[in-house]
């Protein structure tokens, strides 16, 4: 299925009216604003969405990551247990891809597709970073099994996923599969969402990287 580029106004029409945005663990996130369509949603002209603050305290999200923005920094453990921060990648383009879980069919296809095209990413001067809620041990086994040459980060509690506003699929039951391409200044230039055609993430991101 072809990916869709939606015009600006679509997001306001998809916004639930008068509904406070309370963020729960990622499996229950329902984000209407950039609802992924399974078959490709390229967000190239998104607006930032005002979200009313919730009274529950720690689940307040102040604004999701959109194109043209610099995403909030994160500090997550990689597959070897080492801390990695987003700021480390500044100066080079970086592909940050959020995926549901290690050792699931779509995520395996996606990781292997990134692996198989890794030379092209390197040629474009880009780094690749995968992020899911799995722990470092799971990432280590996953990376070893499929010989993944890039970094996998452990987003425990899906905190970064929530901060960046990665939408869920199937009425909040599945963590979304969304990829961000940041340029060398750390600014988001592409957001691509596609749950069930994971290999397309590689094509779309490479296309953009080659134009940067």
């Amino acid at each position, binding site marked *: 299925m072809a990916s869709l580029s939606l015009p600006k106004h679509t997001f306001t029409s998809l916004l639930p009216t008068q509904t406070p945005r309370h963020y729960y663990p990622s*499996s229950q996130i329902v984000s209407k604003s950039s609802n992924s369509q*399974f078959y490709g949603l390229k967000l190239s002209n998104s607006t930032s969405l005002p979200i009313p603050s919730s009274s529950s305290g720690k689940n307040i999200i102040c604004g999701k990551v959109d194109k043209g923005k610099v995403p909030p920094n994160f500090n997550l453990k990689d597959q070897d247990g080492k801390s990695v921060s987003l700021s480390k990648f500044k100066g080079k383009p970086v592909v940050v891809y959020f995926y*549901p*879980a290690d*050792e*699931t*069919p*779509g995520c395996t296809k996606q990781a292997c597709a990134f692996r198989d095209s890794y030379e092209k990413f390197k040629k474009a001067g880009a780094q690749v970073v995968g992020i899911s809620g799995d722990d470092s041990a799971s990432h280590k086994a996953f990376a070893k099994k499929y010989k993944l040459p890039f970094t996998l980060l452990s987003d425990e509690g899906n905190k970064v996923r929530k901060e960046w506003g990665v939408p869920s699929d*199937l009425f909040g*039951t*599945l*963590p979304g599969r969304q990829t961000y391409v940041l340029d060398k200044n750390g600014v988001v230039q592409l957001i691509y969402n596609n749950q*069930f055609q994971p290999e397309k993430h590689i094509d779309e991101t490479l296309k953009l990287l080659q134009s940067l």
Partner: protein
Amino acid sequence: MSIFTQTKLLPSPKHHVHTICHSPLLRTTVHCSVSTTAKPKPVPEKLIIEPPRLQQLEPSPDNIRPMLNDPSLLSTWSHRAWVASGCTTVLISLAKSVAGAAHSHIWAEPILAGLVGYVLADLGSGVYHWGIDNYGGASTPIFGAQIEAFQGHHKWPWTITKRQFANNLHALARVITFTVLPLDLAFDDPILHGFVAVCSGCIMFSQQFHAWAHGTKSRLPPLVLALQDSGLLISRSQHSAHHRQPYNNNYCIVSGVWNEFLDKQKVFEALEMILFFKQGLRPRSWSEPSSEWIEEAETISQLANN
């Protein structure tokens, strides 16, 4: 609903004398060339009437290759009785539909309902097959025996073509009897019965359609071939795709009309992901198939001798 009771021969006590097979198997590509069991074959002198026996510990299914002349492939009177009762309930439903339609002078609606029943039977067969193929095990309540049988079927898919008719269908016929009989007794509506008769009939006979899908062109009746080629029954090629690793597609076995849609739209993959994230259940198809699942091939000559 038990659709796919397959190689139940393995745990049954009466087969213990046949369970140890020492003949070496040459692993080659095999094409199913065994005869089909399209019609019941009344061979009274070969009928096995099962005496009451004590339960015995049985070797696990994965160690036992079914012999092609195994008595567990034959129909018993119990099997025939269940098939007869299942057919009776379906025919009663059909008769009620026809009689009601004639009485009310409505034909289009019952026929349309029948068509819906035919289409939904295929979907139902796929969903059930997907569930049985991916979750649970031999010790699962109610479904354990079928799950175990499925394992056997994937390992020895050709066995189904050697089963006699009632042997193949009796488990489904039993479920249909219990499901359709109350509907026959409670309702008279011709449209409802149009749906019920066709849907339940297709489900009951899905195991026969399944067996034909494992047959070879040279050994299937021309009518069956025509129905397969026209897409009215599950085709041999479509079903053989299900028997290739990782065994995660083409689950429907009545007509297969839903297969392309379900596979292309990744419906089962989505359901698997939901069950994984919500319940922590990991489907079998996500892992490398175990030895119990991988098809065991035999030489063509061994099959030809049987």
